[in-house]
């Protein structure tokens, strides 16, 4: 027997929308069985995971806060992936953005007088650092044909070790008993809070703005058109006179800049100092978010919120139901796998054909 895939000629929007929901239902069902097997109430677990975080203003802010870096990075990656360029080093670009942007904050710590320029400079430096770091694999690709998948991945670890070194060494707080962290940033170097309770910071607005800008650029500009054409049909793009080289560099710059901006926004917003590690893997999770969101800005926003929701729900499950963290992780992995699979099913018609395999 063999399994045949053929692209659906007339994809129904209903099917497109239904597929991830179906995957979600299946994942929840499997999760529920596991929870029941562990002797807890599946209904209570469902409420803790998916309802409670949405029912309080505070936890809603936290969901938004967690989703913001994911959405911002994934939006940048969408440009790459649509153009068939594979930047999987966003984690490194995020870290470098946070490091170099944060460096400004450390260097200007305690500065007197007008310090209004500090935060904009940090954001700019963080973004530029992300762009510069992303251009390494991009240039290696266009000059030498080196696979960007592998170089961008390798550079993640180099960036992490660089931050580790800086936070433990040169940028360490001299008054901090040799503990590996920088001074806490001045207020002038922090993103302002948006609401009472000092939780939601302006980084969320940056992410939101990025989603809107990306949607407009992709739909309405020549650059967006180019990205889409190259992704859909490289040959056609070449006939149209689009330059591969320029596009590769451009999409890498966009994604690196977005990741770098997300990095400095996280440092200037939530963390407020440099530490040996500033990311719980946002750059990698964002790759999944980009695909869950089908590389569309709005889809990415939704996917980022869902991922954030399960993380925060998972914490609630640890507190209220004493369910282990590993269960949440396994559930997240399963959910992602199922959504990716269901997505394929909505794109292709699957037929089981008697005969030999292909």
């Amino acid at each position, binding site marked *: 027997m063999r*399994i*045949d*895939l*053929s*692209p659906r000629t007339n994809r129904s929007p209903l099917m497109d929308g239904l597929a991830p929901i179906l995957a979600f239902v299946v994942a929840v069902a499997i999760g529920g069985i596991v929870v029941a097997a562990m002797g807890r109430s599946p209904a209570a677990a469902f409420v803790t995971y998916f309802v409670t975080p949405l029912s309080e203003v505070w936890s809603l802010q936290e969901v938004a806060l967690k989703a913001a870096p994911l959405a911002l990075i994934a939006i940048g990656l969408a440009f790459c992936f649509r153009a068939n360029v*594979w930047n*999987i080093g966003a984690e490194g670009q995020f870290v470098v953005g946070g490091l170099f942007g944060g460096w400004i904050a450390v260097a200007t710590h305690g500065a007197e007088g007008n310090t209004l320029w500090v935060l904009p400079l940090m954001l700019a430096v963080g973004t530029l650092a992300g762009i510069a770091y992303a251009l390494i694999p991009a240039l*290696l690709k266009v000059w*030498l*044909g*080196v*696979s960007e*998948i*592998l*170089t961008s*991945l*390798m*550079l993640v*670890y*180099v960036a992490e*070790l*660089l931050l*580790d*070194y800086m936070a433990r060494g040169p940028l360490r707080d001299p008054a901090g008993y040799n503990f590996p962290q920088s001074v806490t940033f001045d207020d002038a170097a922090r993103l302002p809070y948006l609401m009472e309770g000092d939780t939601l910071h302006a980084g969320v607005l940056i992410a939101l703005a990025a989603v809107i800008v990306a949607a407009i650029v992709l739909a309405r500009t020549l650059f967006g058109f180019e990205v889409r054409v190259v992704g859909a049909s490289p040959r056609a793009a070449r006939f149209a006179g689009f330059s591969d080289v320029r596009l590769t560099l451009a999409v890498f710059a966009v994604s690196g800049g977005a990741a770098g901006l997300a990095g400095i926004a996280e440092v200037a917003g939530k963390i407020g100092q440099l530490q040996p590690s500033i990311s719980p893997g946002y750059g*990698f*999770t964002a*790759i*999944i978010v*980009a*695909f*869950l969101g089908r590389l569309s800005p709005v889809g990415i926003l939704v996917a980022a919120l869902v991922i954030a929701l399960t993380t925060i729900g998972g914490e609630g499950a640890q507190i209220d139901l004493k369910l*282990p*963290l*590993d*269960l*949440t*992780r*396994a*559930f*997240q*992995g*399963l959910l*992602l*796998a199922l959504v*990716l*699979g269901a*997505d*394929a*099913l909505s*794109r*292709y018609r*699957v037929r089981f054909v008697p005969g*030999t*395999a*292909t």
Partner: protein
Amino acid sequence: MTLDVLQMVLVTIVAAATPLMIAALGELVVERSGVLNLGVEGMMVLGAATGFAVAVETGSTLAGAVAGAGAGLALSALFGILTVVLAANQIASGLAMTILGLGLSGLVGASYVGMKRESAPHLAIPGLTDLPGIGRLFFGQDAFVYAGFALVAGIAWFLWRTRAGLALRAIGDDHTSTHALGLKVRKVRFLAVLFGGACAGLAGAYLSLAYTPFWAPAMTAGRGWIALALVVFASWRPLRVMAGAMLFGGATVLQLHAQAAGLGLPGQALSALPYLATILALVLLSLGRRQGGSVAPASLGRVFTPFR
């Protein structure tokens, strides 16, 4: 440094290289077929947990090793269904497997925390193992190490000396043409993915059964990612994977030895070395064949669907 100390260092390097080598060899076959599996770390850690659990329950290291490989294989089957059968994106699917593997390993291993087993037995041939200077290095390793070297030879032979191996490499280089020629692209890829998963699981089991015989969460500590780097560093060739594993394992071990001998080196820079070396190797390889483009399997990471 006496001969015996030198031997100790070499034995340590070989042991440190073995998990990298086994996992990387599996991934090499996967990538040669044109699939990029970023779930190696997840498959490895699940293999470590399952291998240890089964070994404790059955009292058999062999059963543990088989179970570890089986666990990696099972997770890679899911990966194969997603990427090969359903043509989902390989990068996203691989990352999902890593998250899933880490979570599952914690659940599987939870009740085995704090338990200890004897490590896998080492070969002991009277007369040979006691040879000064080389005995332990060549005749005193555990079965995983020999299995690792056997894999090198086996995979090299398979890929370059058999029709099936030729087909696998051809598929990795151009799935469209090979499909047109009637080769079973998806079947070969699926099998390659299963093999890679089993190798990753076995490498994980090596850690929990032989190298540091206990289970602890996330005990692979990023070795799956190093294995991925290693495949590239080795430019998709088994013998070079072996050499690269010795180099990557050796760098860490030698750095630790240098410190113990009183020669300090900055830790972060050294830890970054495998990755920088890999990038450098990629660049040099590309410079070497400027005209021929990349040495990577040309279809690596690309989705294949047999459209008609």
